[in-house]
C-alpha cells in the first residue's frame, strides 16, 4: 500500500467506500465507512451483518448504522479495486501526471 499519502489521509480517502470488518465473535460486517476517531471506533452505514456456519445467517441481515469498537475488531478489509485506484492515483501524483 505504498502511496504518497499519510495514514490519516489514506483513511480519509477510504470514506464512503465499503469496508468488511470481522469481529471477535465471528460476525462479518459489510458497510460504508463514514468515520472513526482516535480509539478507532469505526462507524459504518447501510451495514449488513453476516454470520457463517451451519444454522446461521449466511445471507446476512440489515443492521443499518453501527459503531464497531476497536477491541471487537479482528480484521478490517477494503475492496481491492478501491485500493488499486488509490494506489494508481498516488503513483500518478509522484510521476507528475497529476499536479
Amino acid at each position, binding site marked *: 500500500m505504498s502511496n504518497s499519502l499519510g495514514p490519516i489521509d*489514506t483513511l480519509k480517502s477510504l*470514506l464512503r467506500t465499503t469496508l468488511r470488518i470481522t469481529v471477535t465473535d465471528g460476525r*462479518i460486517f459489510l458497510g460504508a465507512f463514514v468515520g472513526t476517531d*482516535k480509539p478507532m471506533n469505526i462507524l459504518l452505514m447501510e451495514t449488513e451483518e453476516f454470520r457463517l456456519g*451451519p*444454522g446461521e445467517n449466511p445471507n446476512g441481515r440489515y*443492521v443499518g448504522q453501527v459503531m464497531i469498537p476497536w477491541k471487537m475488531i479482528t*480484521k478490517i478489509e477494503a475492496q481491492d479495486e478501491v485500493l488499486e485506484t488509490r494506489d494508481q492515483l498516488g503513483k500518478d501524483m509522484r510521476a507528475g501526471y497529476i499536479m
Partner: protein
Amino acid sequence: MFNFNPINAINSLAMDVDYEIPGGDEFRDITELFAQASAAMHSEQMIMMDGFSLHDAMSALEIGEPRLDTGMTIGTQRKQPFNPLTPLLPEELCWIIDRSISYEMEWHTSNQLVHTVFTLLYIHHFQEIDPDMLPYAHLLVRDPDRPLELVTVVLRAYVSGLLKSCDLAWRELVKGGVNDTEDWQADKCEVSLLEGWPVKAAIARLKEAIGWLMNTTKVPSNWRDALTLRLEFRLSLLKLQENNVFHDPATFRQLLFDARGLLSHIKVSTVPAPPENSPAHTAFDPYVARRLNTFMPIRVVELPPQEETWVKLQDWLDGWEELVTLAKIGDVSTWNIVGNLCNLLPTISLRPAYVRSSTQSAFFDGILVLNQYPSTWLVDRFFFETLGVHYNRIATFFGGPGSTRMRDVERSIIKTIVPHIRGQWFNPPRRRRHFAKEIFEWHVVYDILSIIITDLDYSTLSSRDSALVLASPLIPLYHRFSCMREIILSGFQLELYSANEKDFAYWYAAKIVEDQLNLLDKIIGVQVLLSVQETEAHQELHFQRVFLTALQIMCEAMFSLLVKSDVPRTQSWSQTRMNLMRRYKWAFLERYDDCETLPVGSPPRLREYLFDMSEVIDDELNPPSEGFSLAQSILSGLVESESNKPVPVFAGPSGRACVGGWAADWREERLKVLHILIETCENIGRVKDKSSCPKLKWDPKKSLWFPLLEESGRE
C-alpha cells in the same frame, strides 16, 4: 453394500454448504493502516465523511454492547447446531408441537413473533424439510423408531398450519381495531408467514399428514393418536380462522365444538419433556432474533406451564363462541352490554387481541354493520333501543331520514356509535381513554338535536309527538352519562386513583348517576306516554333505573365512608384541585365552548364537592352502613324480580327480556355483576361507625369498583 452412518449422511445433506465470504474475495486487509492512523491522530481528532456529524454518529448501534447488539453471542448462549433433517421420535415431535403452541399463545399475549413463534427453527428451514426436495432422503435413515416422514410430512404440515394460522391472525390484527405494540406485535422480521399460500394448501398438507399417520405402521399407535389429535386441532383452528361467522354460523359452531373436543383430549395427553441430549431441544432457539432482520433486543420468553397454554386456547375458543353468538344478534345495545360485561366481570379475562379484533370487524367491517346493514341502520337502532320508537317517527317532523336537516344528526350518531361499540373491545386503559374522548362526541349529537328541535312549531303537534321530539336530545345525553360513569368507575378497576382522589371519584360518580337517573325518569315518562312499556327499550331503562339507584347510593355511602375516615389527607386543597383538574381533564375541555348548548354533567362543581364534604363530616344521622344496607336490599330485590320474571311475549324463545331488555344470552353475567355488588354492600356495610376504623382494600378482581374490608379489619 454401502457402509455409512445414516445420521451423518443426513447431516451432510443439510450442512454440506460452501459458505461464501460476504462481499467476495476481492478485499484486502487494511487493519494495519487503521492502527497506523490511530497512532498518528491526536486525541480529539475525528475522521468523518462530509455531512456526517457527531450527532448522526450518536444513533449508531454499538456492536458488542449486549443491550443493543442483538447479534452478539454470549458464551452461555451458544448451543448445538440445528439440523432440520435430524430424525425425531414421535414423542419428541409431540413435545415440539406443544411447545410451539405455547409460543404461539405467547405471541397472542402481546409478545414479539421473534421471541415466540419464530424461535421454532423449522420455520426458517421450511424448504429444507420439503419431501419433494428430498426424494431419496428416507432411504438414508435406517432407524425404525425415527421415520424421517415424521419431520418431512408431519412436522412440515404442522409448521405450515402454524404459520398460516399466524398469517390469518396477523391479517386480522393489522386492520387497526387493536393497537400494534400495545395489544399485539406486528414485526415479522421479514420472515414468511406463508402469505402466498392459500389456506387450502396448508389444510391439504395437514390432511395429507393425518392420512399418512393413519396408514403408517412406523409410529406406535399411542403416539400416532397423539400426533393426529394435534394436527386435527390445528386443522380446526385454521378452518375457524378462515370461516366468516356470518356466512355459515352452523359450520362455525360445529368447528368450534370439534376444536373444543380435540383440545380436551390434548389436555389429558400431556407430553413429558425429552431428555437433555434429545435433538428436540435444538428445535427452539430463543436467540434467533440475532440472525433475523429486526432491531428488537433479545428477550427470552419463559414459557408458562403447558396447562396455562391450554387455558389460553380455551379462552380463545370462548371468545369465538361469544362472537358467533353475538353475530346473530342485531341489537346494538346487546353488543354494548356484552362489551361492558367483558370489561367488568373478573371471571372473564381480557380476550386475546385477535379475538377482540375479530369481534370489532364482525360489528363493522368498514362498509356494513353486522355484515348486512348500512351504517344508517345504526341511527334507527340508536333511538329504537333507548326510546322504543323508530327513528322514522322522529325524523318525519324534520323532513324524514336523510333530509338536509337530519343529515348532520345521522352522521354524528354513526360517527360516535361505531367507535363506541368497537371501543368496548379495546384493552381496558385504551377503552377508558377512548370513552374520555367520546363524551364530547355525544355532547355534539346532543347539541345538534337540541338546536334542531327548537325550530319546530309545537302548536301543530299532539302532546305525544311533542314529548317524543323533545325527548330525542335526551338519548345522546343518556349515553354520555353512561360513558362518564364508566370513565370514573373504571379508574378503580385500573387502579388509577391515589388515596387522596378516591372520595372525589365516588362523589363525582354519584352526581353523574343522579343526573342520569333524572334523565331516565324523563325518558321513561315519555315511553309511558307513547305506550311502549312492552318493548325491550322500556325493560332496559327500568332495569337501569333500579340498578343505578343502588349504585348511586353505594357511591354516596362510599364517599361518606372515606370522608369520615380518620385517614389524614396528604395534600392541600390547592394540590388536590390541581390533581383533579388533570385527572378529569376530559370534563374540563375548552372545546365545549364551540357548541351552543352547555355540557351536562361536566365540569364537576368543585365547590359543591367541598360543601358536600363538610356536610357529610357533620352528619351523624346517616351512617354509610345504612346506605350500603339500602343498596343491598334494592339490588337483592332487582335480582329476585329479574330472576323470577316470566319471559315476555316479545322476548322470543331465548327469554332475552330478562335482566333488562337487551342482555340476551348474557343475563347470567349481568346477574353476576349484581351479586358481586350485593356481596360488596354486605361486606362494607359491616362498618358501623368511625371507631371501627375500617381498613379497606380495592381489589378489582373481587369487588369491581368498591373496596372490601381487609380480613384483619373485619368486626
